[in-house]
């Protein structure tokens, strides 16, 4: 008998607050190993804020957080240093370092592990081509010279370069036109197929969600409205959820 697998990420009664304003209260859910959990909600419901708290980049206003089965006590928990290496993050908008070129951006995580330059650069090139960019063409460009789609792909490459166990994507298809977004989703699916990593995906694009998510969590009204399989969630009886998933049925 093996013990039940520990969830990759577990939030227990987490709250998010900025000053006097409560953004989210009492959010509890788990991300299980190997699954893709989609986190949805209208713009401004606190998805990005929740992510920052789930990654312990900010101090929570209450609640417990565990990463890889380990309890985290706040942004300066010493264990985070090692745990974060097992997480790849694509921030909303990419957050590429504008002073570095694309290859340097992607090679930064392995360089941070003190790997030699040529090895780190080789890993970065492979990651770039995984993300659908040609390293020979894009590698030496500065982020400012990239289009939105290319910047997102470069950011994805940086997120996956260490083959993380948990991949966190904040609105990866935001601002991409449908064909580019679809290509991006395909690239992500192939990636997941190959490396079977766990994904926490924030999006408000239903198509992306449909293509990738195994389970869906819906945020709204300052709390976690519901969480479950796509079928369960779309049948959940709540006006906000209902509104949100209008047209879901008609997706292929």
């Amino acid at each position, binding site marked *: 008998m093996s013990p039940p697998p520990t969830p990759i990420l577990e939030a227990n009664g987490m709250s998010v607050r900025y000053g006097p304003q409560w953004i989210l209260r009492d959010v509890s859910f788990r991300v299980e190993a190997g699954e893709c959990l989609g986190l949805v909600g209208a713009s401004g419901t606190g998805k990005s804020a929740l992510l920052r708290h789930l990654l312990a980049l900010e101090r929570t206003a209450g609640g417990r957080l565990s990463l*890889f*089965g*380990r309890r985290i006590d706040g942004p300066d928990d010493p264990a985070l240093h*090692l*745990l974060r290496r*097992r997480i790849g993050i694509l921030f909303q908008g990419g957050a590429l*370092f*504008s*002073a570095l070129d694309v290859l340097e951006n992607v090679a930064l995580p*392995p360089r941070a*592990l*003190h*790997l*030699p330059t*040529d*090895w780190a650069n*080789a*890993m970065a*090139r*492979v*990651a*770039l*081509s*995984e993300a659908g960019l040609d*390293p*020979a063409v894009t*590698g*030496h460009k*500065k*982020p*400012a010279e990239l289009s939105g789609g290319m910047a997102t792909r470069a950011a994805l490459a940086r997120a996956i370069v*260490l*083959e993380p166990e948990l991949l966190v994507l904040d609105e990866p298809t935001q601002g991409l036109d449908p064909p580019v977004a679809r290509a991006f989703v395909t690239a992500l699916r192939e990636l997941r197929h190959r490396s079977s990593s766990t994904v926490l995906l924030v999006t408000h694009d239903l198509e992306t969600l449909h293509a990738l998510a195994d389970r869906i969590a819906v945020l709204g009204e300052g709390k976690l409205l519901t969480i479950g399989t796509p079928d369960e969630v779309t049948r959940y009886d709540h006006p906000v959820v209902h509104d949100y998933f209008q047209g879901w049925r008609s997706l292929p």
Partner: protein
Amino acid sequence: MTAKASPADAVPPPRVRLLRDGGRDLLVVEGTWTLHTLAPKNVRRPLLRRLHTEAHHAPWRLSAAELDAAGACFLLTAWSGTLPPDLEGDEDQRALLEHCRNALRGDEAPAPRVSPLEALGTSVLGSGRSLLHALEVLGGFALRTLAVLSGRRRPHLGALSREITATGVRALFIVALVSLLIGIVMSYLIALEMRSYSAYDFLIFVLGVAILRELGPVLAALLVAGRSGSAITAEIGVMRIRGELDALRAMGLDEGGRLIDPKILALVVTLPLLTLWSDFFALAGGLLTASLTLDLPMGHLVDLIPRTVPQSDYWIGIGKAAVFGLVIGIVATTFGLEIEADSQSLGEKTTRSVVTAITTVILLDALAALAFRSVGLP
């Protein structure tokens, strides 16, 4: 350590083994070749030596217990980006290596090193270009200001008032403090010397001319260049990086009248006023120290100022301050507009903005000293 289910020693370490297989030598890649196992330097070094020297001597066989993309990249960099001609073994692992090699292929050479001469040339050209830009900014500012003065254009008074608050009002405290201290120090040093001569008129004259003509305007200009010059460059730069300037232009709002002119104008207005403020505190500190060191009534010393210090020196100081304000404003906005879309450029241009503004101010001050050498100063 990481909370891995299996302890580290249960993982077979990466290694290269020489195998005699049916009369021929075969090099076998075995063990776990992953980022995790290869990260320690002492693991990598012996492997690298082996991989380097024997890459093309013997046939290779891939039979790693585990190989990830990082491991594949490691093998490929050790093999200088090529696969050995005789490579057999696990299909999946060979496919992964092929896949990674394709990503590494066709890399262009890194940017060539810049020679010192070229760097010098670039920097000179860059300065020349900055000078042209500055003249452009100055010209635009002058034309728009003329248009405002002749009533053909409406001034942005709200923006001007905001800028005056930022560059003038918020600088009052620091200017007062620095001026007071400098006045005290200077007066103390001179008074020590003068005590033996009882040449009080001369003390007041030196103090008055030095402060009104030189120290007041230069001190205020240096402080404002450091405070507001850098802030203006950084603000315009960030607006440029985030595309706000493009947005302004696209909406048909002129960035010149709305963004640039108020900043320059505010400096032209506030710097003479700050100079007056600085004059006051420096003189106050100076006279107070003199009266304490020399045991003279304060009122007597204050009376001496208008009698010994020519008024023209005061006006020269105020006039210089207005010019310094213009220079700081032009330099700060010019460098702000030159900032390119990366964070490094922001820091670089902000530094250059402050250094250029301060240097220009001091240079102009020296020129003014030459030009006005026969004015004032009886």
